[in-house]
């Protein structure tokens, strides 16, 4: 048989029917739902009097609007209405939901894998672009719009076309202080934010195989920032170990049967990809973004690039606009940029390993006097509990961080956590777009360790000097 890529295997296993022009109906195994992109879908269903096709494919939680400070009811009435609407819809349709206050509640992309609701070989969709996260489990996971959310609810399928395939191979050993986040930023810096458009990316190579599931999720999470709707990593022992014993995972005989199948979810030797990109892990350094797009990224020891040296006029203008927005001059060393706030959290970097790695840097230290606020926001109630059990909360608090409840928090400022205009933040989230963390906000994307290092120094600094 012709060797096939992981993507092709997942695709073929889910085609319900395919038209001559390649348009296909793809069966959806898991549908994750949150409060922001679902109300109009439920409304559409009700108006058309359509039932849900398969209720137990859905898992819902509120995350974007939920306050991370202790609040019995959400103070903002507009946010409250959106969260209440989700609760009501879930009750009405008998959908499993982890509502605010449930100890399992959290960011949708953290709780899916944590519950074993995301399994290898599944198609996973959610009305959220960072659904690519779940590809870390060799699942075909894609972000969809609200009309598609409604379509999946009503038909259990998605209308889709086969993507082109790209393999990004990262070989070698990642240096200490260089994490999955840096790998993700390095890839985006290399191929650009539109480099993956139209592709499903498979991340491969020895550096990827040596990543934990948390690291793989960070990487796949950022696939969408490279323009790819889906990112994925093949199944190996790390995948299977992680899934084992999770609440929604199969057990007993079914488990063995599942594992047998899952082990086939790898790209065959000799499979051909439409595009191949290779990076050397050893050469990746801790990275910091300087502009308003994740591709505007340099090493911590570099300086801000000079737009005048950019030949392409559209790119040059983009760089100039970004520097103006960020209030930064070309040529400034990254390590001399001081910060106002620090955010450790988001679906990119709020899992236990992220918190551990930041705590390792923070232990016994204090945040700098110029840092007005430093937030540590676990991705879920279970991550929070685990971190507290390990005493990480104490390390964060003693360093001067606020230890919050789970949610999207300052990643996008739909809740109370946001930057004021002009404030500069070292953030472990995934988007540094204009206004993303609040109107006029200035975001620099970094890894949790780099965010912790910046918190202590009061400016960006090479974390490698702080850890053994």
């Amino acid at each position, binding site marked *: 048989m012709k060797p096939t890529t992981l993507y092709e295997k997942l695709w073929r296993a889910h085609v319900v029917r395919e038209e001559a022009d390649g348009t296909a109906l793809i069966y959806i195994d*898991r549908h994750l739902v949150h409060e922001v992109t679902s109300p109009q879908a439920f409304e559409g269903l009700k108006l*058309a009097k359509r039932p849900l096709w398969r209720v137990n494919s859905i*898992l819902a939680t509120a995350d974007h609007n939920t306050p991370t400070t202790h609040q019995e009811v959400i103070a903002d009435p507009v946010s409250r209405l959106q969260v209440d609407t989700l609760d009501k819809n879930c009750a009405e349709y008998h959908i499993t939901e982890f509502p605010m206050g449930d100890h399992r509640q959290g960011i949708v992309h953290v709780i899916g894998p944590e519950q074993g609701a995301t399994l290898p070989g*599944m198609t996973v969709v959610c009305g959220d672009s960072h659904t690519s996260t779940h590809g870390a489990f060799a699942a075909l996971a894609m972000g969809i719009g609200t009309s598609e959310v409604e379509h999946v609810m*009503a038909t259990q399928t998605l209308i889709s076309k086969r993507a082109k395939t790209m393999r990004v191979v990262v070989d070698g050993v990642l240096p200490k202080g260089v994490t999955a986040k840096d790998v993700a930023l390095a890839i985006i810096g290399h191929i650009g934010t539109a480099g993956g*458009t139209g592709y499903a990316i498979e991340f491969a190579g020895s550096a990827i195989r040596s990543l934990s599931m948390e690291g793989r999720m960070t990487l796949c999470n950022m696939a969408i920032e490279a323009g790819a709707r889906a990112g994925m990593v093949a199944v190996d022992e790390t995948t299977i170990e992680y899934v084992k014993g999770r609440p929604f995972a199969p057990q007993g005989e079914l488990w063995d049967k599942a594992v047998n199948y899952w082990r086939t979810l790898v790209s065959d030797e000799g499979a051909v990809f439409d595009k191949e990109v290779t990076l050397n892990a050893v050469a990746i350094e801790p990275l910091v973004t300087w502009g308003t797009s994740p591709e505007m990224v340099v090493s911590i020891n570099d300086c801000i690039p000079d737009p005048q040296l950019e030949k392409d006029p559209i790119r040059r203008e*983009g760089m100039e606009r970004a520097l103006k927005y960020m209030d930064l001059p070309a040529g400034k060393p990254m390590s001399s940029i001081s910060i106002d706030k620090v955010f450790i959290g988001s679906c990119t970097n709020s899992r236990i390993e992220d918190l551990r790695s930041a705590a390792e840097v923070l232990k016994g230290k204090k945040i700098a006097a110029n840092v007005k606020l430093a937030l540590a926001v676990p991705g879920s109630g279970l991550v929070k509990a685990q971190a507290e059990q390990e005493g990480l909360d104490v390390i964060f608090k003693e360093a001067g961080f606020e230890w919050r409840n789970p949610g999207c928090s300052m990643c996008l400022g739909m809740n109370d956590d946001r930057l004021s205009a002009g404030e500069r933040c070292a953030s472990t989230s995934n988007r540094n777009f204009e206004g993303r963390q609040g109107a006029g906000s200035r975001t620099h994307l970094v890894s949790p360790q780099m965010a912790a290092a910046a918190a202590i120094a009061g400016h960006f600094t090479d974390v490698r000097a702080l850890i053994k």
Partner: protein
Amino acid sequence: MQAFTQVTGVVLPIDRSNVDTDAIIPKQFLKSIHRSGFGPHLFDAWRYLDEGQPGQDCSKRPLNTGFVMNQPRYQGASILLARDNFGCGSSREHAPWALSDYGIRALIAPSFADIFFNNCFKNGLLPVVLPEAVVDKLFKAVLATPHYQLTVDLTNQQVRTSDGESFSFEVDGFRKYCLLNGFDDIALTLRHAEDIKTYEAQRQLAEPWIFGVNR
């Protein structure tokens, strides 16, 4: 869904690449539980000098007169001209809802982000991909001519200028069919309900764990 056959109208040039959906409709407006009313907040952060809030009356807000959308010559635009990777970032369908609520019917760019591109078709908006050189030429023409108009013709897959020049574009057959007829995807898919059931039954045998009861 609103059908799309052909649109002739004023062209609004948004001359920057990587315009993300946060820019098209900022996050505070995502709290709405409805599909309409986003038009006045299209490009809110660029369009007004103050910070927009959901549900407010926008007619009294201070305008950023430096932003193209506020210039008289672009009023009533129904076609948006953009650069590479338009609509990147968040999957929010509020972006096409805002564009369409404002009156935009077609978009032209050298490339679009995937999810946004998809979302447009679901909302009666036509995203047209034209080569970079053509888009560049159109930008020059729009900037040089007040109230510059174009025709976007889906039936013949052409963008036409008022002096008769035309550029053809590709569009997926199925999407074209749905857009021309204003068809709702769900109704079309449900015609294949039997296929879905057959598929589901097979999968249930092969991978029963997918269908387990939620705890």
